[in-house]
């Protein structure tokens, strides 16, 4: 069985696609409202909580969940585990889409969005003390890097478009250039997320006394970095398993579990061994958090069982639960268990970020915030859009690596 990337093909406008399109459309309408009427109407953010769902989730958590490309690149290109190579393209696609969503989320959230081009261009105005500047520049460059990393997939398909000769020629000429430079681009694709994912942790340190002690530590950058790499692997497992479930069957077959939806042994083994990476990262995270809390005398606060303590304990519990599911090889061989563990890791890391940005941030007991319905719907719409883009690209371009027998079912 030879494995290489193929476009999945099949009909685009399936029922799930239409549902997602509707959600995306709704989000789009609300986004237009946001630009027409200002942030106050569409969101529930206020002067006590100037950052809300869109920053905490769309940007901070969204980019962490989009760390699949980063995590897999570390494995494949630095640790030279070539067997995971089939996972690279889908992971990079998810990352590219996730970071693009985050970039759009930023443009949506800032009040004077028309000034955003000044940030990368006006270098003489750069405030080098600002962590946010570093995050902004890194995320923007990383987004470009990801699409460039992904470009061979598009160029491959373009090369085959003999009907459009100039395109095919252009692609044929460009692809080798990109592939030669790919090593240095990938190195950038590892450096940049290392920088900004840790800085996303450092970002909230500026709140100083307004950040709850259970989260307020100088170790935030490292904690964010470790958790995001783990979340990257989790996202890869999540996305691989779901892709297999969604696309690993002929389009005209009814939806039912058949032997064709089972990952082949090589796939199953690949994901199983990949998921091992989450264990040391997760364990390191939990240990570091506990040691840090103990060192700062915050263990009593951790077990105070007030709202903050419960959230922090929940984070740790989710991480430990996830780690527990991955400790035994027999568990890792079960795709269902792997999927559950991946979801738990993603949940745990997301909760950690939510907590750092929204729960731990304490402007004073007289302020309260919860995202409004329209705020939530915009986020849902953006995520729907990301999934739509994923489905489209995966069906049209050679991203997923399918076994040859699967390809026989598709055109």
């Amino acid at each position, binding site marked *: 069985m030879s494995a290489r990337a193929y476009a999945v093909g099949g009909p685009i406008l399936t029922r799930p696609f239409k549902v997602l399109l509707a959600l995306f459309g709704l989000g789009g309408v609300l986004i237009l409202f946001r630009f027409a009427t200002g942030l106050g109407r569409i969101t529930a953010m206020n*002067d006590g909580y100037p950052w809300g769902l869109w920053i905490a989730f769309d940007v901070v958590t969204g980019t962490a969940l989009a760390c699949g490309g980063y995590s897999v690149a570390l494995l494949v290109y630095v640790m030279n585990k070539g067997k995971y190579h089939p996972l690279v393209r889908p992971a990079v696609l998810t990352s590219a889409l996730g970071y693009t969503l985050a970039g759009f989320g930023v443009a949506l959230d800032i009040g004077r969005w028309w000034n955003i081009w000044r940030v990368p261009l006006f270098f003489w105005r750069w405030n080098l003390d600002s962590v946010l500047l570093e995050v902004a520049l890194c995320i923007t460059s990383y987004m470009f890097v990801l699409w460039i990393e992904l470009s061979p997939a598009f160029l491959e398909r373009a090369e085959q478009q003999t009907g459009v000769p100039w395109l095919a020629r252009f692609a044929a000429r460009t692809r080798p250039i990109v592939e030669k430079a790919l090593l240095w681009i990938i190195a950038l694709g590892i450096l940049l997320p290392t920088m900004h994912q840790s800085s996303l942790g450092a970002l909230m340190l500026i709140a100083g006394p307004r950040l709850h002690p259970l989260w307020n530590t100088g170790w935030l950058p490292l904690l964010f970095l470790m958790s995001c790499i783990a979340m990257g692997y989790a996202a890869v497992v999540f996305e691989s398993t779901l892709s297999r479930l969604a696309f690993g069957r002929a389009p005209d077959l009814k939806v039912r579990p058949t032997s064709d939806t089972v990952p082949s042994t090589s796939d199953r083994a690949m994901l199983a061994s990949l998921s091992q990476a989450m264990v040391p990262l997760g364990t390191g995270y939990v240990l570091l958090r506990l040691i840090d809390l103990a060192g700062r005398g915050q263990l009593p606060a951790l077990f105070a069982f007030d709202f903050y303590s419960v959230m922090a304990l929940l984070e740790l519990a989710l991480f430990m639960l996830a780690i527990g599911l991955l400790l035994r090889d027999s568990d890792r061989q*079960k795709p269902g268990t792997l999927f559950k563990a991946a979801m738990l890791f993603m949940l745990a890391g997301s909760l950690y970020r939510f907590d750092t940005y929204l729960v731990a941030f304490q402007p004073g007991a007289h302020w309260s915030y919860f995202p409004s319905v329209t705020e939530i719907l915009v986020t849902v719409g953006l995520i729907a859009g990301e999934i739509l883009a994923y489905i489209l690209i995966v069906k049209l371009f050679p991203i997923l690596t399918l076994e040859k027998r699967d390809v026989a079912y598709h055109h």
Partner: protein
Amino acid sequence: MVSRRDFVRICTMAGAAVGLSAAAVSQIVEAAAKGLKPSVVWLHFQECTGCTESLLRTSHPGIADVILDLVSLDYHETLFAAAGHQAEAALQDTIKANAGKFICVVEGAIPTKDGGIYCQIGGRTAVDILNDVGSKAGAIIAIGSCASWGGIPSADPNPTGATGVPMILKGKPVVTLPGCPSNPYNFLGVALQYATLGTLPKLDDLGRPLFAYGRTIHEHCPRRAHFDAGRFAGKFGDEGHRLGYCLYKLGCKGPMTHANCSTLAFGEVVDCWPIGIGHPCVGCTEQAVAFRIPMHTTVPIDRPTPPDTYPPIHAPQGGISPVATAVAGVIGGAILGAGYVASRRIDEADRPSNADKG
């Protein structure tokens, strides 16, 4: 005849009303004593004569006497004994004799529709009379809202095309003293200043003297403390009304009305003005308010200032919408549920084929 003491007192009051210094007041007294009385030509058009009456109602001492001692009232239809051709002749003689020096006081609006036929005196339309007399006057004072901008005759639908003096005598400096009626001391102050110093007081862009019309009633109302403390009369006759609370909720136009009724008594009787007797100000000086906005309709505050209350050190703000929480809960639950179902389906798919598929 008034005593010198009363005379000086009245000059002082009139001078103080216009903001003249003590030195200027003594100038007024001196000039009057010398008999240098400026000629005043008083024109009446579409008016109720209320402004004249208001001037005449002052009685401590009789202002009528003082007016006759301080100014030479050379033409006044209400007070004249003469009538008909005699009166007309007197008018023409006066304006010729005192051309460029006399004060032309106008009371009442001027109709402009259909050639201005709705007010004619001696066969001439008000517009013609005004243009004739006004062109020769040294100073023009429009007393009352009618002369200032049209007043009651100009209320919708304004069938006669009534309008004020500045709209007819465009380009000439016209002192307007709106009010219904206008406060007589405002008029006295302006007239005396012109008569003795030859100058007119500082005017705003509508020609209103700033000393009288520079502030809104709201800014110097005796009931302002009640407004700031949030104490209002809700209905005529209710507890708040009887306790003399702020009349804003009953439609007081004070916040939009420039005038000095609250600080300068009418007819020398304190509280002899709407708010003083418990009725909201109706904005009689303002063209945009009087006879346009219903009396008991509340108006916006032009320049709000802080109230008499204080926010706490930490005022509760923001909020948590229960609907949003529910929506978030549903979405969260759906994601977790879907994840669980998906993992079960993956497990199920795994079960029948434990054999190697590779």
